[in-house]
C-alpha cells in the first residue's frame, strides 16, 4: 500500500471520527439545537401547542400595531370597540410538561398608543435564557375598518377588511383582502397577494411574486426577482427587475420601468409606457398613446387607439390595428405591421419592413432589408421610402392619385401599373403620375430592385 493512500485513509477516518465526536457531544451535552432545527426558515421537529386569549378595548378607533416574528399574524373583522387576540404558542420541546412550562413564560403585550393599541410578545426575553425553538401566532379580531400596522418575520401575514394597512414581512407571504384606504406593503422572500384596495397602493418586494386585484387608487410597485400579476387596477407604475409583468384591465396609465423584465398588458384605458430589456413586450387594447423602448426582446402592440412610438434594439417589432400615427426605430431587427390607420415613420436596420393594409403618410428608411408596402385603399398620401441594401415592393390599388418617382441605382426597376402616365423612363429612374397627380410617392434604393404593380384595395381594420 502506497504512503499516499495510507495518508488519505488516515485523513478520512480522522474526519469521520471528528464528525462522530461532535455529533455525540451535541446529543449528550446539549450543544446546539436538540429537539428542533430550522429548515427553510421554519422550526421542525416535535412540538406542542398552547393558547392564550385576551380582549382589549379599542376606544379611539386608532391604529392597531403588531410586532411579531416566527409566527403568523392574522387580522379578521370582529366586534365593534374591542380587539380580541388569540396567542397560539408552538413550542419545539419534549416532553409536553417541559414545553408547557416553557410556554407559560411566553406572554402577550398590549399597550394603548394614541387611541389605538400596540400588540407584541415577550419572545425575545423568553428565548434569551434557553435555546428552544418556538412560534408565536397571533389571531386578531378587530373592528372592521380599523387602520393596522404589522411588522413580522418568518410568519405569514393575513389581513382582512381593515381601514388602512401598513405591512412588512420577510420570509413568508402577505395576503391582504379589503382595505378601505391606502395600503403600503413591504415584502422580502415571500409572495404577496393584494385585493380590494380602495385607496392607493405602494408595494416594495424582493424575491417573491406579487398578485394585485381590484385596486381603485394608483398602484406603485417596486419588485425585484419576482413576477407581477395585476388585474382590474387603477393607474399602475411598476419598477421591476428580473421578473415579468402581466397586467389586465388597467384603468388609467400603465408605466413599466424594467430590467430583464417581460411585459404583457391588455386593456389599458390610459397611456402605456414601457422600457425594458432582455424579455418580450406585448401590449394590446391600449386606449391612449403607447411608448415602448426595448432591448434584446420582441415588441408586439395591437389595437392601440393613440400614437405608437417604439424603439427597439436587437429584435423585431410587430404592430397590428394601430389607429394613431406610428413611429418605429428598430436597430438589428425589422418591422411587420398591419392595419395602420394614420401612417407611419419607420427607421430600420437588420431586417425587412412589411406594411400591410396601411393608410396615411409613410416615411421609411431601411438600411439592411427590403420594404414591402400594401396600402389599405387608394394611395393619395405622401410616401417616401429609402432602402440601402434591399428592394422595394409597392402594390398600387385602384383610384390612387399621386406623383411618382422611383430610382434603383444598382438594381432593376419594374413599374407595371395600368393608368400610370410615365414621363421619364431611364435604366435606373422612372417618373410619372397616376390619376392626374397629387402627393409625391418616392421610392429609392441603392442595392436592390424596385417593383411597383397594381394591387387590390383592402379596407383597413381599425381598433
Amino acid at each position, binding site marked *: 500500500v502506497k504512503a*499516499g493512500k495510507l495518508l488519505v*485513509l488516515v485523513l*478520512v477516518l480522522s474526519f*469521520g471520527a471528528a464528525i*462522530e465526536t*461532535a455529533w455525540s457531544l451535541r446529543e449528550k451535552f446539549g450543544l*446546539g439545537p436538540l429537539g428542533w*432545527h430550522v429548515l*427553510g*426558515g421554519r422550526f421542525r421537529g416535535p412540538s406542542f401547542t398552547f393558547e392564550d386569549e385576551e380582549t382589549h378595548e379599542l376606544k379611539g378607533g386608532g391604529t392597531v400595531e403588531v410586532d411579531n416574528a416566527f409566527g403568523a399574524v392574522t387580522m379578521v373583522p370582529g366586534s365593534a370597540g374591542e380587539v380580541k387576540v388569540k396567542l397560539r404558542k408552538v413550542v419545539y420541546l419534549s416532553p409536553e410538561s417541559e414545553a408547557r412550562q416553557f410556554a407559560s413564560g411566553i406572554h402577550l403585550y398590549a399597550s394603548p398608543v394614541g387611541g389605538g393599541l400596540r400588540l407584541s410578545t415577550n419572545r425575545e426575553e423568553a428565548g434569551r435564557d434557553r435555546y428552544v425553538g418556538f412560534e408565536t401566532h397571533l389571531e386578531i379580531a378587530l373592528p372592521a375598518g380599523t387602520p393596522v400596522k404589522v411588522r413580522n418575520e418568518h410568519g405569514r401575514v393575513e389581513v382582512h377588511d381593515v381601514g388602512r394597512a401598513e405591512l412588512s414581512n420577510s420570509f413568508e407571504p402577505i395576503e391582504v383582502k379589503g382595505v378601505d384606504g391606502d395600503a403600503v406593503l413591504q415584502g422580502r422572500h415571500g409572495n404577496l397577494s393584494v385585493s380590494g384596495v380602495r385607496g392607493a397602493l405602494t408595494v416594495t418586494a424582493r424575491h417573491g411574486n406579487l398578485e394585485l386585484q381590484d385596486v381603485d387608487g394608483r398602484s406603485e410597485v417596486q419588485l425585484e426577482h419576482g413576477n407581477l400579476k395585476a388585474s382590474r387596477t387603477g393607474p399602475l407604475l411598476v419598477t421591476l427587475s428580473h421578473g415579468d409583468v402581466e397586467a389586465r384591465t388597467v384603468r388609467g396609465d400603465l408605466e413599466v420601468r424594467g430590467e430583464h423584465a417581460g411585459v404583457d398588458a391588455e386593456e389599458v384605458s390610459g397611456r402605456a409606457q414601457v422600457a425594458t430589456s432582455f424579455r418580450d413586450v406585448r401590449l394590446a387594447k391600449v386606449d391612449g398613446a403607447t411608448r415602448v423602448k426595448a432591448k434584446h426582446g420582441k415588441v408586439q402592440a395591437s389595437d392601440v387607439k393613440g400614437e405608437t412610438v417604439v424603439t427597439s434594439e436587437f429584435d423585431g417589432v410587430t404592430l397590428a390595428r394601430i389607429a394613431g400615427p406610428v413611429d418605429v426605430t428598430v436597430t438589428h431587427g425589422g418591422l411587420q405591421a398591419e392595419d395602420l390607420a394614420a401612417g407611419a415613420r419607420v427607421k430600420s436596420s437588420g431586417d425587412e419592413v412589411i406594411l400591410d393594409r396601411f393608410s396615411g403618410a409613410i416615411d421609411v428608411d431601411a438600411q439592411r432589408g427590403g420594404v414591402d408596402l400594401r396600402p389599405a385603399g387608394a394611395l393619395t398620401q405622401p410616401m417616401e421610402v429609402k432602402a440601402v441594401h434591399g428592394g422595394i415592393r409597392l402594390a398600387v390599388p385602384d383610384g390612387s392619385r399621386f406623383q411618382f418617382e422611383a430610382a434603383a441605382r444598382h438594381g432593376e426597376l419594374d413599374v407595371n401599373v395600368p393608368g400610370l402616365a410615365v414621363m421619364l423612363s431611364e435604366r435606373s429612374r422612372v417618373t410619372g403620375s397616376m390619376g392626374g397627380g397629387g402627393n409625391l410617392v418616392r421610392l429609392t434604393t441603392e442595392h436592390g430592385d424596385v417593383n411597383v404593380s397594381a394591387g387590390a384595395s383592402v379596407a383597413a381594420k381599425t381598433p
Partner: protein
Amino acid sequence: MAPRIRSEGIVAGFSLIGLGLLWMLSNLGWLDLLTSVRRWWPLVLVVWGAAELLNTWTVRNRREVSK
C-alpha cells in the same frame, strides 16, 4: 494503453464535492450540516473501496490481454 485510475484522487474529488454541497445546503437553511455529514461520511469509504476493486479488475484484465 489507457492511463491507470488513481482511486484516492476519485475519493478526494467526490468527498470535496459532497462536502461542498452539504455545506451549501446547510447555509441555505435546508439541512443541518453536522447531522448530514455524520450520516453520509462512511460513503467515502464505500466509494473508495469500489474504486479500488474496479482498479484491480482493470489491471488484471489488462495483464491477461497482454499475455
